[in-house]
């Protein structure tokens, strides 16, 4: 249906470049399932965070100096001397965490409601690509302040590639542009940290194009079968997205204004020193689960491969889960395994935070070093400690063991549980239509005959 615009200037432009017609279809009329819950807010929130990161990043780049001798001080100058520099930097720093929170919720929502299933496989794969790009961008951004964690984080992560046989050390030298992480590394990371967000923006556009081919999935996981199942995007979901965004921004503002460095590491307030590694290297919270998987395998190459695989497995997720039912709402067994996966990811995050040799004492809510557990249990040597320990009345489990159990579940969920569930799970009956699922008695306005055969109504 052609749109007629009242404004003659818009009509003139639209006739030659139908951008207004396109917007009218894709952002205004765009038929959207009428039962979307607040879990569907996080896509637009993630998009908003991308814009915030690019905007603050451009203004920070005007003040930052990418040189090993000047970078740390230029960041301190932003904090102390540049007008509102502290605000821009705290918005950017905490924005990275907020971006990951939004994206992780977005991904878990996609898994729970089967949003990766046909015909949305490519939409999902493009989304995983965005996650990878985000991870690369966040990592390189963290290097720029050139504090101790920046430097040693860069050293550890680039050294991951040295695990590959034959070409490993050549790749690492290529990444560094020298014999170690140094000025050439900082310069290229800065260049790429500026570039990649715009690449992400481009991939996000493709993500949205792929989304609009079949429209959003919804909490029932069943397709829209006609106009009675949908409402126009504007004003219903623009308002809902804006409301959710407002709530999210309150949460975001709390971190920016009341706990701006709580998510960071104190060691990064020390200028980078290539001659001394901090006692504990810990990545930012959003990388902790991957770090735990890396450390839970006591073999360099296998550990690195396992870590990369934890993302790669998401690419093939649409073909691992063959169940014809999309939504977890109607999959009683899947639902339990899913929430276990969420819990296991939290455990992995916890494991990534502490040295692997330490013990977690769950009954005492604390993590202790082997030495202090040995002393508390009056043991002769640390060899007397077992991975799972009952030493001297202290029940403890070594962080590395906990991480190994969690990592095994993580991969088992995708590679074993989902394929088996596809065969053995007895799913609950699906509602006949979206409309029937959300309205009392299948929707007062829709005659029962139409509700029973929704395709005919359409």
């Amino acid at each position, binding site marked *: 249906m052609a749109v007629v615009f009242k404004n003659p200037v818009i009509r003139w432009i639209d006739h030659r470049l139908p951008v207004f017609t396109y917007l009218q279809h894709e952002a205004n009329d765009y038929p959207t399932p009428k039962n979307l819950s607040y879990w569907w807010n996080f896509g637009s929130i993630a998009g908003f965070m991308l814009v915030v990161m690019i905007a603050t990043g451009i203004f920070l780049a*005007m003040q930052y100096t990418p040189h090993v001798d000047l970078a740390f001080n230029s960041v301190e100058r932003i904090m102390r001397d540049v007008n509102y520099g502290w605000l821009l930097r705290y918005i950017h720093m905490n924005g990275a965490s907020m971006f990951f929170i939004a994206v992780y919720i977005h991904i878990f929502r996609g898994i729970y409601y089967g949003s990766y299933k046909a015909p949305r496989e490519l939409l999902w794969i493009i989304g995983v690509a965005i996650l990878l790009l985000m991870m690369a961008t966040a990592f390189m951004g963290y290097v720029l302040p050139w504090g101790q964690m920046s430097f040693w984080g860069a050293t550890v992560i680039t050294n991951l590639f040295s695990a590959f046989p034959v070409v490993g050390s050549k790749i690492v030298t290529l990444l560094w542009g020298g014999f170690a992480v140094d000025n050439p590394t900082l310069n290229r990371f800065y260049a790429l940290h500026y570039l990649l967000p715009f690449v992400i923006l481009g991939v996000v556009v493709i993500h949205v194009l792929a989304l609009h081919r079949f429209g959003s999935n919804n909490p029932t996981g069943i397709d829209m079968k006609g106009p009675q199942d949908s409402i126009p995007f504007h004003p219903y979901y623009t308002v809902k997205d804006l409301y959710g965004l407002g709530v999210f921004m309150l949460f975001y503002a709390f971190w920016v204004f009341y706990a701006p460095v709580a998510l960071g590491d104190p060691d990064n307030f020390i200028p980078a020193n290539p001659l001394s590694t901090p006692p504990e290297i810990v990545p930012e919270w959003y990388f902790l689960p991957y770090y735990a998987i890396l450390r839970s395998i006591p073999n360099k190459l296998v550990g690195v491969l396992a870590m990369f695989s934890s993302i790669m497995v998401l690419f093939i997720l649409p073909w691992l889960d063959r169940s014809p039912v999309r939504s977890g709402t109607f999959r009683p067994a899947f639902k339990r395994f899913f929430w276990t996966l969420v819990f296991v990811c939290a455990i992995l995050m916890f494991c990534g935070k502490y040295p692997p040799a330490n013990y977690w004492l769950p009954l005492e809510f604390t993590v202790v070093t082997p030495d202090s557990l040995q002393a508390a249990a009056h043991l002769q040597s640390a060899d007397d400690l077992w991975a799972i320990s009952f030493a001297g009345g202290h029940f403890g489990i070594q962080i590395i063991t906990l991480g190994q159990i969690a990592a095994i579940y993580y991969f088992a969920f995708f590679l074993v549980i989902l394929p088996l569930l596809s065969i053995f799970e007895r799913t609950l009956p699906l509602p006949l239509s979206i409309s029937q699922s959300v309205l009392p008695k299948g929707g007062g306005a829709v005659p029962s005959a139409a509700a029973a055969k929704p395709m005919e109504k359409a």
Partner: protein
Amino acid sequence: MADHAHSAQGAGETRRDFLYLMSASAAAFGAATVVWPFISSMNPSGDVLALSSIEVDISGVQVGQAITVKWRGKPVFIRRRTPEEIAEARKADPEVDAKGNVISNPAGLRDPQTDASRVKKPEWLILVGVCTHLGCVPLGQKSSDPRGEFGGWYCPCHGSQYDTSGRIRKGPAPLDLAVPDYVFEKDTVVKIG
């Protein structure tokens, strides 16, 4: 009266228009408060503003010589004028009353100022060396430089000519070369800014 009661009950457009107006105003105010720190961050920062004065030792400058120093990122001309140059500058002076208002301007100065108002000691002429046309640095500091028809400075960019008091005499520049704030801390040390 009946119409009024009807619209006040909420079905009318006035109430909705009011809500739209209020929402849009709140959004505009919010957007402005967000944009403010971004724009403000581009203004000179605290450390830039702090570097605003310099001290210059002028003991080595002979009569007829000039030196150039950098102040706030710009050149400052310090010229020790000869008696002839001072006399020539004073010859072109406009006539002013006690308050400094111009009474007559026989030399036809574009930006009339007396030479005395532009110096603290007649021998020392201190100017910001930036052409008031489009910001180039005029020539004339070295004795080998072209100094224009009036013996002061000549701007190579668009041909503005300044006299021995730094006043614009010919060419496109609208104003005389600016005089910075300065004090003689000693006979041989001047503090600029």
